[in-house]
């Protein structure tokens, strides 16, 4: 937001559309739907992040990452549980990712088709293997999205049969080929 304001003040915004990355081309900047204490992240960025989470774990017969609000957990954790330095790397890496997708496709992440989005995530994944700014975003993004997804009420109850009150403990349960996940991990 500060950056946008700065650009506006410098008079770049009106005629500068062609020069600016697509993420900054949107007409209005929305407020984020999550209250953050330490990092600055606007609603447009939040929406991009949600799309990235969804591309990482898309909807099928089971809900996707967006529906399970994983992007909120990603932001909550970055905001509350990461060192300031890691927070800055996350933000810088995110900005770099936005620019890179614009450069590659001329569109913002949300405007891309799922295949393009996933191809881009793959690019990021290989790019981060050589350790660079992107990894400061991509690694925690990926790890926290997976953690949020697996730790969601929907997945914990419907897929893994989470039972808060097992009532008993059995030391030796025999398993066989037909044993389902709920038996294996109960």
């Amino acid at each position, binding site marked *: 937001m500060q950056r946008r304001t700065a650009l506006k003040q410098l008079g770049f915004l009106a005629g500068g559309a062609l020069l600016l990355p697509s993420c900054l081309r949107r007409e209005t900047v929305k407020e984020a739907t999550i209250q953050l204490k330490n990092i600055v992240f606007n609603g447009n960025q939040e929406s991009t992040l949600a799309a990235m989470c969804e591309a990482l774990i898309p909807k099928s017969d089971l809900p996707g990452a967006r529906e399970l609000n994983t992007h909120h957990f990603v932001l909550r954790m970055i905001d509350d*549980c990461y060192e300031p330095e890691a927070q800055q790397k996350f933000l810088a890496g995110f900005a770099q990712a936005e620019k890179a997708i614009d450069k590659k496709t001329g569109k913002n992440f949300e405007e891309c088709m799922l295949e393009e989005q996933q191809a881009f995530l793959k690019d990021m994944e290989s790019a981060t293997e050589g350790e660079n700014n992107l990894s400061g975003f991509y690694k925690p993004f990926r790890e926290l999205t997976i953690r949020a997804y697996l730790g969601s009420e929907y997945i914990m109850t419907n897929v893994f049969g989470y039972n808060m009150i097992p009532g008993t403990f059995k030391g030796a349960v025999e*398993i066989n080929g037909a044993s389902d996940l709920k038996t294996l991990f*109960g």
Partner: protein
Amino acid sequence: MNINVDGKGQNTYDAIVIGSGISGGWAAKEFGEKGLKTLVLERGRDVKHNVDYPTTNLKPWEFEHKGQLPLSVTKENPIVSKCYAFREDAQHFFVKDNDHPYIQDKPFDWIRGYQVGGKSLLWARQTQRWSTYDFEGPDRDGFAVPWPIGYDDLAPWYSYVEKFAGISGNKDGLSELPDGEFLPPMEMTKVEHYFKGKVAEKYKDRHVIIGRCAHITEPQPIHTQQGRVKCQHRDLCQRGCPFGGYFSSNASTIPWALKTGNVTLRPHSVVHSIIYDEQKGRATGVRVIDSETKEATEFFATIIFVNAAALNTNLILLNSTSSRFPQGLGNDNGLLGKFVAFHNYRARVSAEYEGFENFTKYGNRPNSCYIPRFRNVHKQETDFLRGYAAGFGGSRGVVRNSEGIGEDLKENILNPKLGKWYVGSHMMGETIPKESNYVALDTDKKDAWGIPQLKISIDYDDNDEKMVKDYLEQMTEMYTQAGFTNIKTSDSHQAPGLDIHEMGGVRMGKDPKTSLLNKWNQLHACKNVFVTDGACMTSTSTQNPSLTYMAFTARAVDYAVKQMNAKEL
């Protein structure tokens, strides 16, 4: 100090109990049942069973950070953050570093729970009796001072507290770890059973048993009367248990005590010191500072029980000075605060086992297996004194491939596989009480209530180092014998304190010249003051100590009341 001395009559009781944790709760219950008008002073807030367990029914996804604590909390609390249970679900039951500072002459991670129930909400609930060999240790091996009592003195009181608290365990028939009044044992896992068998086969004197723990596995009428039911295997004990499945002061002794109508519980009451009356030659009461208003009040009683938790009990006695006792109450020999010891929890050994692939476990077990001390039990055998017990557990890991993007990733993470069986063990070593391991009052720094801060000077010694080495070697050998693979040893070098088993400073003994308390936990030099928490411990042995504090407390209350009735107190 501005003291409110109005209404001395209404501030007078038969007994005052300082502290409402695991031993204070027992004192409250025993006094209440015996009909004594009793005041229980707790420095923290009230925590009512169930009512004040805010996280107890929260599902994992209902925690904002899924259990993890925000960086702001861990950075502000470097000490308590080292404790395994200081997490999002139970952080409200721990003392925060800045609220109650102390001085570390040597590194000491002092973990505290200031609330009604104290650390009994947070304890690991392992409950083993001491054996005759443990009580005989100091005398046989020539350290500390001889215990003034033996196993036979305490055995009936172990039985007494076990029946009420509810202790699950197996009658293993081991002289080094006497059986108790057990509710049915919890089950061992496949690999734990296997290890038990292998150890029994290779070593005559080593035993792997299921842990004896303060969980109700089959409620008896005495538990139902407390409103407690069977442990539900949630394994979320640190949040406070809505079923009363495990023993805590909050679920058990405190409500029981209050039900007698004889007990008054007063939270927010920081005890400044015990009042000693020179003319009467006895303690007459305590000075209390309200933790919120800082107002000082005096309370009076015939009998005073100090159950403030080991180091705070030392602090209160050290701060109870008079012209008769310028160095602290009952401290004629200058040994108050000295000979503090703890348990050495530094070392761990983990490994894997290939086999039992078609077996797993179901549910959670808030308990593990236990290996009683096998070193130097009957005679001195090693180059170090005493020995160690060990926790042991075996379960199956989960292998989760989290590679890929999109559907591939989803497929991978939603289809985890059971991994190999893994096993883990940690040592619980006896440390030798020494005069050089001590606590004292700081001469400058005071806390927010005008009470001197505690200065802690406690460290490991060579004996501890040798014991760590031996534990790692012996456990590795036992694992190897059992065919475990990928054996990994570690020494955390954690500071004393993190074991949360600090003991001593007001030790029991036969001789007033070398100890503070007699065989009834009574100050030699001030007979109406009793100490029955960890501060009374002459040596530490290897057992988790709480059960022994409970037994000491019930025994001492019984004695104190008999003495009072006989006009001896």
